[in-house]
């Protein structure tokens, strides 16, 4: 009989399985970023974002009413983004990343999932009507290309591809030479990440990889004198507590300082409902021994992609259900008083009052994937609602 009572009590627990996650209101000193306009998308989840001039490209992700196989092209010359074209990518369930080359000639789009991993290489001769040059697909990248970072190293254009695990294969990095965009060639590959490699960051001949449970690793691909794109040499690594997803190596445009890398932690979440994960600030002044010195935590929400105003020292972070946050990253981020220092010695940027502004929290449910600062305006891709255009943060505050 007692067992029946235990069983009945267990069943009662069923009714108590409630989840409730709501980000708290921003601090009072945090400004609200003005919303200038919205380009609505409701049939697909909006994913990555790339803005060049008056044109914005957004990809779509996952499965909503329709699959995430569309590239939306927006005219953002006015306050309200206007959809001017949509390109459907065949044989793709989701589009992992979108980026234009620095010269504006190419648009690179990553596709997922297994067995349709690839990169689509488009000509941007007509920026609103991309024309496919080639689809680069090999057995090695077929599990899915999660991100494709397009950067020049020593004058040559490369795509750094983060490959999903799948089909019994582990995650890996593949580097492809795009010198001839019609015939990309693989120049490097290695298993990487545990269990994922997500975004990478390339600048000044240095590659920084976000390796999930392994934190980040800094590689010399020509910038430190020993490595090359075909032969990256690991310089140092640091754990940032798991789920290392994205990196921005901040170059202070005024002082030339290159001390900090910002690492986004992509914790568990549910689209539209919840997210988790902090921004971790890593001092990379010594590549051989990077160390985390500060963090930014937003209760009830987690970060995703970044964009940095390197002149004014403002980091804009997509914060999924927490909207957008603008954080002051000027000065010494490793210095704080005892009240704002965590037990492991890191400075708490939120506690230090470094949140300058917030955006989209008064627009109903949002789930902001990415942000990009362009032309003095901030663009935010929102999985639930499409593309937003916002005013940038004032700093120093008005």
């Amino acid at each position, binding site marked *: 009989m007692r*067992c*029946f009572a*235990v*069983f009945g009590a*267990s*069943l009662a*627990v*069923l009714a108590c*399985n409630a*989840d409730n996650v709501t980000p708290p209101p921003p601090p009072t000193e945090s400004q609200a970023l003005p919303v200038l306009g919205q380009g609505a998308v409701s049939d697909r*989840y909006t994913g990555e974002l790339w803005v060049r001039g008056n044109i914005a490209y957004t990809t779509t*992700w*996952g*499965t*909503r*009413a329709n*699959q*995430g196989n569309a590239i939306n092209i927006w005219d953002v010359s006015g306050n309200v983004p206007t959809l001017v074209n949509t390109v459907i990518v065949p*044989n*793709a*369930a*989701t589009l992992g990343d979108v980026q234009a080359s620095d010269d504006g000639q190419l648009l690179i789009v990553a596709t*997922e*999932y*297994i067995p*349709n991993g690839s990169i689509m290489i488009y000509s941007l001769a007509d920026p609103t009507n991309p024309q496919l040059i080639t689809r680069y697909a090999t057995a090695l990248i077929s599990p*899915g290309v*999660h991100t494709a970072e397009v950067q020049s190293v020593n004058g040559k254009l490369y795509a750094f591809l983060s490959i*999903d*695990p*799948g089909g*019994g294969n*582990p995650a890996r990095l593949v580097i492809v030479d795009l010198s001839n965009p019609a015939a990309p060639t693989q120049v490097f590959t290695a298993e990487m990440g*545990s*269990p*994922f490699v*997500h975004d990478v960051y390339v600048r000044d001949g240095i590659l920084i990889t976000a390796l*999930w*449970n392994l934190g980040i690793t800094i590689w010399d691909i020509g910038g430190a004198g020993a490595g090359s794109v075909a032969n990256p040499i690991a310089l140092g690594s640091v754990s940032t507590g*798991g*789920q290392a*997803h994205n990196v921005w190596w901040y170059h202070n445009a005024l002082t030339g300082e290159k001390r900090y890398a910002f690492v986004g932690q*992509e*914790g*568990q*979440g*549910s*689209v*539209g*409902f*919840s*997210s988790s994960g902090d921004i971790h600030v890593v001092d990379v002044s010594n590549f051989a021994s990077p160390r985390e010195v500060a963090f930014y935590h937003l209760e009830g929400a987690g970060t995703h992609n970044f964009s940095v105003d390197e002149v004014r020292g403002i980091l804009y972070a997509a914060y999924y259900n927490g909207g957008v946050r603008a954080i002051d990253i000027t000065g010494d981020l490793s210095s704080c008083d005892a009240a704002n220092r965590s037990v492991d010695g890191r400075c708490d940027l939120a506690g230090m009052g470094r949140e300058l502004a917030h955006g989209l929290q008064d627009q109903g*449910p949002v*789930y902001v994937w990415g942000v990009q600062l362009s032309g003095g305006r901030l663009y935010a891709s929102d*999985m*639930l609602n499409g593309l937003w255009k916002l005013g940038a943060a004032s700093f120093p505050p008005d």
Partner: protein
Amino acid sequence: MKSTRLYILATVLLIPIDLSAQSGQFGPAHVEIGAQAIGVVTRESPAIHGRDLTEGYLTQPLVMAMASLWNDALQLKGTLDLEGVTIKRGELNAGILGEGYIDRRHPHTYLHELLITGQRIAGDNGASVTLGKGFAPFGTDDPMARPFEKYPINHHLAQILERAVAIGAVRTRRVILEAGLFNGDEPEGPGDVPNRARYWDSWSGRVTLIPFPQGELQGSYARVRSPENARGGGEDQHKQSASIRLEDAQHSGYGLLEWARTSDYVGSTRTFSFTSLLAETSARYGVVSGALRFERTERPDEPRLTNEFMTPLPANDLSITGRSRWTIVTARVAALVPVPMPFTVEPFAEIARARFTPTLTPSGFDPAQFYGADHIWSFSVGATLKVGMKHMRMGRYGVATTEMRGMKMAAMDMDGMR
């Protein structure tokens, strides 16, 4: 190619028809073999995006063998499952999720079970050790050994199967205790085998009380490391199960009330939980049987591949697109057709109605928008063919099988239970 596969399948299925080999004593060994398969046609309305689908399958094709030596001191058990050949695309089963399939039930691995058990029994007491590939000591019987053709969608909440297992069990007249170690990784395809690097990284334990011979209460708990990322490093699961099972002495009536919960963990932090409540019953009157099942189960909603009945395996991050609660009522009628022994042929019809609602709001995923309706009807007609050894309860080994030797044979003859 398809006809070759069917020929091979038919050949394998016919092997046990050698009557002398179905059950017999060979020196110190008692050997039983058998086979089964179900031919079924299922119509779902809608199956996806407002579209109806009608499909036919040869499902649950099994070849089973068991040998007991030296008066059960040593037992060998093997089950081949040929679903990797017959339902490679998966079987329509609204709401189900697992091993890279969604809204279709995945095929099981070819080597479903292969185990060796050593046991010692003294009166009502006994102890056993089992090694091999099979079920971890957790949860309830495999749906394949229960009344319905269509699986409940809580399969991955309520059972842990196709693992490399090491299980110890002790029992008295009223209590069975089991503990087991196994590999946490789920199979990644029908031909997959447990990942050797993951052996014994997970554990489970089950307590079974038998207050009277026809009643059974079960409670179990499991810690499963990174089940959906075979190389490790993914989310862990903590699983709980409790059930009451009743079955009359004549095996003509059966009932199960089951609760199960799986919680995902990142390190020590719980993220989402998925809970299931299930009640099912069946009864037989002569050659006719009927069964009814109620299920309310939560599942994560996930991105899908270009084949929208598939999900990425493994996922490439820790997030889900939502969580939905599925309420499914399933009814079944069946009738045995007179055929010569040792064959059993049982035509059946099943009807199910599934409703679903998002449980995390605001939710990015609207199931009604995706399916094109707020409920799904499923109709199935088919026939179960068995030969030789009838299906026993599946998911317990050694002294943990609630009916030991003499009783077990009665269970094997239990009509109406696959």
